[in-house]
C-alpha cells in the first residue's frame, strides 16, 4: 500500500506517538465501570461510618462485598494511573523527570493495588 507520508517526514521519523486512542479509551472504560462501583463504595462507607472493626470485617468478608471492593480498587487505580499519566504529560517537559515520574506512578499504583487486594483476601480469610 502506498503511504501518504513524504520521504522527508519518513526520514525524520516523527510519526505517531505510539498508542493512539488507546489511552483515551481505557480512561473511558474505567470511568464507566466506576459509576456503579463508586455508588456501591459510597453506600458501603456511609454504612460503616461510626461502626467498629467487627462490622467492617464481617461486611468485607462477605464474598460479594470482597469482590466489589476488589473491583473498585482495581478500576480506581487503573483510572488513577491513566489520569496521573496525563497530568505528568501536560506539566512535566524534561525527559528525565518525566520518565522518573511515569515509573514512580506505575510502581506506586501496582504497590497500592497489590496491598489493597492482599488486605481484602486476608480479611475474607480471617
Amino acid at each position, binding site marked *: 500500500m502506498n503511504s501518504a507520508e513524504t520521504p522527508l517526514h519518513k526520514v525524520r521519523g516523527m510519526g505517531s506517538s505510539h498508542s493512539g486512542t488507546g489511552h483515551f479509551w481505557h480512561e*473511558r472504560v474505567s*470511568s*464507566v465501570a*466506576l*459509576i456503579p462501583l*463508586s455508588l456501591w*463504595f*459510597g453506600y*458501603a462507607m*456511609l*454504612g*460503616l*461510618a*461510626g*461502626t*467498629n*472493626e467487627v*462490622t*467492617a*470485617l464481617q*461486611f*468485607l468478608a462477605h464474598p460479594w462485598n470482597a469482590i466489589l*471492593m476488589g473491583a473498585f*480498587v482495581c478500576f*480506581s*487505580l487503573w483510572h*488513577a494511573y491513566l*489520569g*496521573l499519566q496525563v*497530568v505528568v504529560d501536560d506539566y512535566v517537559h524534561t525527559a528525565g523527570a518525566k520518565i522518573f515520574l511515569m515509573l514512580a506512578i506505575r510502581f506506586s499504583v501496582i504497590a*497500592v493495588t497489590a*496491598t*489493597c487486594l492482599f*488486605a*481484602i483476601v*486476608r*480479611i475474607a480469610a*480471617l
Partner: protein
Amino acid sequence: MADNPQKPVAVTRPTSPHLTIYRWPVTMATSITHRITGTGLSVGAVILAWWLVSISNGPEGWQNFHAYSDTPIGLLVVLGLTWSLVYHFLNGVRHLAWDLGYGFEKNLAERNSMMILVASVVIAVALFALAWTGHGGYLR
C-alpha cells in the same frame, strides 16, 4: 552588512490560552478542579489501602487507623476525599456525556458547571452530616 530588513520582530503577544490574562470562565474552573480532585483521590487510594490493611490487622489495627482518622485533620481529609469523589463522579458523568456529543452548548455547559460545583458540596456535606449525626452505620 546592513541591517536585514527581513529580521523577525520579537513577538510578545500573549499566547492562548493565557491563564493570567483571560477572565476565568466557570468551565475552566470545573476542568482544573476535575484534575485536582482526581490527583487528590489518587492519594486517597493510599489511605484506602491503609484502611483495608488496618481492618485486616484486627482490633489493634483498627484503633491505630482511627487514632489518625478521628482527629480534626483526619476528619478534614475524609471530608475532602468525600467531596473530591462526589465532584469527580458528577463531573466525570458530564465528561462521558460530552464524549457522546451532548452538552456542548455554551450556556448549558456553564449552567451545569455551576450546578456540579454546588451539588458536589451539598452532597458531600450531607453525607458527612448523615455520618456525623449517626444516620450512617446501617451495615451494623
